């Protein structure tokens, strides 16, 4: 190097001393996510036709679809938010939305059950491992 300096960083360091922090004061201020942020998967269960393509495309195998019972089950711990299921769904009833699900100490699944159609009422769904969610596209905090 041609010329050496003793304090090239001094200006930056002094400026830094009197500037505001660069980080967000979460949780006192809300975290801001961009629209595309891959937070968690939601389902519009009324539109689901139980084809099972989402479950087959899911790399970690986080999804289970039961055609007879009309249920769609996701293991939130296994899901890696890749978006493969969203692209595979023919009915476009899956979406990845911003915001993380609440952290948990144990593995749990969430099951969504399709409401019976007025014309062709399917058999009563079997009781699933986790309580069925009446409002499928609810916010993660409520869905847990």
């Amino acid at each position, binding site marked *: *190097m041609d*010329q*050496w*300096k*003793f304090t*090239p*960083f001094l*200006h*930056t*360091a002094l400026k*830094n001393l009197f500037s505001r922090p*660069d980080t967000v004061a979460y949780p006192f201020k809300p975290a801001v*996510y*961009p629209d*595309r*942020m*891959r937070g968690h998967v939601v389902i519009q269960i009324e539109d689901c036709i139980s084809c099972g393509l989402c479950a087959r*495309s*899911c*790399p970690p195998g986080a999804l289970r679809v039961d055609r007879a019972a009309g249920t769609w089950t996701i293991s939130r711990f296994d899901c*890696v*938010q*890749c*978006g*493969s299921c969203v*692209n595979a769904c023919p009915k476009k009833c899956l979406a*990845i939305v911003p915001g993380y699900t609440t952290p948990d100490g144990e593995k749990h699944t969430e099951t969504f059950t399709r409401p019976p159609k007025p014309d062709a009422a399917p058999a009563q769904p079997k009781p699933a491992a986790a309580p069925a969610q009446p409002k499928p596209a609810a916010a993660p905090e409520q869905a847990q």
Partner: protein
Amino acid sequence: MAKQSIVPFGPQHPVLPEPVHLDLVLEDETVVKAVPSIGFVHRGLEKLVELKDFKQYVYIAERVCGICSFGHGLGYCQCVEDIMGVEAPRRAAYLRTIWMEMSRVHSHLLWLGLLADALGFESLFMQSWRLREKILDMFDLTTGGRIIFSVNCIGGVLKDMDSGMLVQISRTVDEIERELRPVADTFLRDVTVGSRLNGLGVLSAEDAKGMGAVGPMLRASGVPYDSRLTGYAAYGDLSVEPITATAGDSMARCEVRIREIYQSFRLIREAIAKIPQGDIAVPVKGNPNGESFMRIEQPRGEAIYYVKANGTKFLDRFRLRTPTTSNIPPMLDLLRGCQLADVALLILTIDPCISCTER
């Protein structure tokens, strides 16, 4: 002859976040030999091609490494596209190039931070990573992830960037370029930084070539080789010049990486200016049958991807040779004769990624 002693180094070490283990044979404070052993973070990702179909595997390929994740997805997709005779649309190629160069900026800034941390220069470390956050925000904006992007697919990309995003990226690039200047100046001109890096671990051009060094490690020894020159994605349309230095020491490796950040800024701007309109993916039908080999320039150096398919949806073989794998032999050569206190710094200057290496 002085008494020899063996000091184990790693896999957990305060300076290196990477789980590399070396047995250092010392004579007093001088290293006479370094014996590496790897395998602490082996995850068997290559073997997973037998269990996950070739479309699912894109998401696994990008999880080989957190820093080069975009490149791994890209290398794998290009291999499969090559086998299936599919060509990604030009817009997709440009988007891939922009993301790839953003990855390079993010990787090199990360490395600069780690280097500053190894030198004990904490505020320089914080400044480097502060700048890196800005690029990560751009990744978050365009792909929805900061580290794992999940935007590559066989036949193109899954997400487009609208003009607002492109403008925002170029604005961020301008901002980082401005703010990087004092940081880069500190790395290249500060007396204390220079006293640690100058003349440390000199690798000659012959040794670099002979031992198969890749990436900034090779170019810092004066060999103008860069696999972006092969023109994959949209690199053929852009003006890529290998960045080289002559000294071959740790400072040269640092300098090459800093200049590559500026080069990436230029390439991002050029790609944004030239990006064509059009589709971002072509539909892919059927299963791949055949084999393919690709090389791409990851931030750490040249990575090689090999895919062998058999006509079913499960591949026969996926092989990945990561840059760190090729940089380990020259690194061992550099360690010979150095002082114990410099070992961590020397390992760092190859920008090791052990989790890539062990997959």
